[in-house]
């Protein structure tokens, strides 16, 4: 299913190149106002690189990825005779924008009727809220949605999704607490088919990726969904909290292995955390980021914009 939704990597189009230039321009402008001692300097020193590396680490990009990015920028600087710290930073930004621009995908709003989206992730990452947001978003895009209350484990998780369904104005299929989530998913898909709802969003219980049984349960959910909707795509959306550190890489690996994550929702970007670890997730696993969450209201949600994301990392 993965390949269906992912077009092959391609070289940047002229339009994308223009975007990159824009990003570069922003760097120049943004840098002028910066207090960072980095930009008081007119020449690149060892300190410049250390500070850039720290900037990346601070944004949770991770020490190894940060080092690699800085190393590559360093080579570029030597090759291209770049001399100012601003240009050094730009070199790193350009690399990151380029890497994140490598994969193209079909967003949920453009997926065919019958699509089932499993929303998965560790405890408390923002799955249920993201479903409310995605439902609102899809609704605005003219797609009809049905919610499946697949978290039958956590106390009052079903009630939480019910409240959202009511607020957003979309139908919901729910069973009793402790019920088999597979049965919920099956019923929800059948209900969507008979009512003509185009996209089913499945809330799942939060689970740590290290819990073998719970990950198997998730695989089972996917099998059930595939069986109930044999001709429709079943995609998995991993919800990652932007405050998460390097553990997000292990999370993504595990969920990828178990239910083949198609895209990521990066939540809680309204805080001070930058969510830089998803860059490393993408760099390593090529799982693209689809959407971002920027608050607790249902409209605090947007498609992921890699330029904006990279720029924010450096702010």
């Amino acid at each position, binding site marked *: 299913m993965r390949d269906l939704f992912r077009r092959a990597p391609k070289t940047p189009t002229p339009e994308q190149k223009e975007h990159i230039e824009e990003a570069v321009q922003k760097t120049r402008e943004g840098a002028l106002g910066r207090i960072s001692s980095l930009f008081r300097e007119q020449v690149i020193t060892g300190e410049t690189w250390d500070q850039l590396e720290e900037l990346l680490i601070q944004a949770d990009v991770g020490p190894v990825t940060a080092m690699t990015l800085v190393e590559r920028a360093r080579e570029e600087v030597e090759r291209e005779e770049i001399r100012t710290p601003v240009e050094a930073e730009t070199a790193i930004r350009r690399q990151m924008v380029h890497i994140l621009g490598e994969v193209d995908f079909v967003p949920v709003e453009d997926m065919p009727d019958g699509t089932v989206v499993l929303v998965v992730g560790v405890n408390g990452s923002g799955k249920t809220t993201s479903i409310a947001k995605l439902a609102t978003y899809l609704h605005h895009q003219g797609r009809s949605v049905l919610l499946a209350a697949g978290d039958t484990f956590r106390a009052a998780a079903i009630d939480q999704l019910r409240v959202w369904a009511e607020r957003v104005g979309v139908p919901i299929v729910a069973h009793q607490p402790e019920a088999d989530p597979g049965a919920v998913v099956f019923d929800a898909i059948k209900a969507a088919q008979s009512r003509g709802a185009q996209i089913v969003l499945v809330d799942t219980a939060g689970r740590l990726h*290290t819990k073998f049984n719970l990950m198997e349960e998730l695989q089972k959910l996917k099998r059930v969904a595939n069986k109930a909707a044999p001709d429709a795509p079943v995609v998995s959306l991993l919800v990652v909290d932007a405050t998460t550190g390097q553990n997000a890489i292990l999370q993504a690996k595990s969920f990828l292995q178990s239910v083949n994550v198609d895209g990521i929702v990066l939540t809680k970007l309204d805080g001070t*955390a*930058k969510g830089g670890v998803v860059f490393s997730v993408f760099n390593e696993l090529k799982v693209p980021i689809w959407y971002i969450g920027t608050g607790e209201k249902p409209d605090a949600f947007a498609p992921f914009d890699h330029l904006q994301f990279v720029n924010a990392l450096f702010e």
Partner: protein
Amino acid sequence: MFETLSDRLTDIFTGLRGKGVLTERDVDVAMREIRMALLEADVNFKVVKQFVKRVKERCIGSEVMKSLTPGQQVVKIVHEELLAVLGEPTRLEMSQTPPSIILLAGLQGAGKTTTAAKLANTLRKGGHHPLLAALDVYRPAAIDQLIALGKQLNIPVYSEGIKASPPKAAANAVQYARRNANTVVILDTAGRLHIDEQMMSELQEIERAVSPHEVLLVADAMTGQDAVHAAEAFHAAVNVTGLVLTKMDGDARGGAALSIREVTGVPIKYMGTGEKTDALEVFHPDRLAQRILGMGDVLSLIEKAQEQITEEEARSIEKKMRTATFDLDDFLKQMQQVRKMGPMAQLVEMIPGMRGAVKQMGGMPDMNDKQVKHIEAIITSMTRQERRNPGIIDGSRRKRIARGSGTSVQEVNQLLNQFKDVQKMMKQLTSGKMRIPKGLMGL
């Protein structure tokens, strides 16, 4: 990933061994490794800087340079410094005149509501009569969540619904507790961002309204670099008296706790180790230190093993391994138990030093359910004698076993080879070539 700092430092110093006297430069190489390890563990980079500086000073001024095992010496210093920052386990501050008031605060999704229920459960076991108070009027069904948890535990929950003003409801909850002879009130608040001024001032109002004896900051063990910002802001707004680190049942290294502790000085009081209401543990600095250093996986592995294998079983297997009487019956049983714990390869990699051994063996066979069933069929088609002493299984026996189990001779061969590998591995383990904690012998 699972290569520990200890392994890396040992490698570095082994490389330097021939050189004679170590210079400050050599020490710097080791410090770089420590820096990387801490950053990988999500310790805040400013905290890392300070920390590494302290370690370096100690290394240069100590016997490390002359030691025969400088790698181990450095690890020891790092470990000691980590413990110094993490501090001793600290108990909850309870009021002389009940009710004691405990306020929980933290970011969204950190685990406050669950922790409230866990604390109530623990305190009740200690003879308290807890009251839970639901002050999250914002997140949908947050109050229902606490009420459901209270019901599960049969612990009362005070709530004024979602129209209530949290500071007022907090004060009323305390009044209610007084009237009902509750000895402790646990206040569950809404998750909030530390930069949300309105919500932070609401938290201050709640604090003013009840003058809590404890304000516990609930933080997720998976938190990255940003942990210090949130913790500093919460500590500046209210008088945080303790930290609860949640979701420690995962594989996060938990460096955020070190950062928070270093920048706020607030003691870590509890660790959350699961979603159930009994999964709360008193903080163990030693375990967290090991985990931050990348050695903690062993402890979780032991825990995993303990969930599946009784102590008695483990002891008997340990003995069998030592006396080399581990047979195919044991092998099958082990495999079925290990299978319940997760993919074999992943488990084995958790053991420090094991990675190399596995690589040498050409990788660990990873088994799925079907394979386990096949193996089960093969082993049960053997005679008792064959299972005890696989050496006697010759060509004709192999054919018979394959027929009996509905498998092929190749599969039987493969299994017997695998068993040989396991035996070899066990010999290595028991001969002390690999460092492996006692509790793990059961594997």
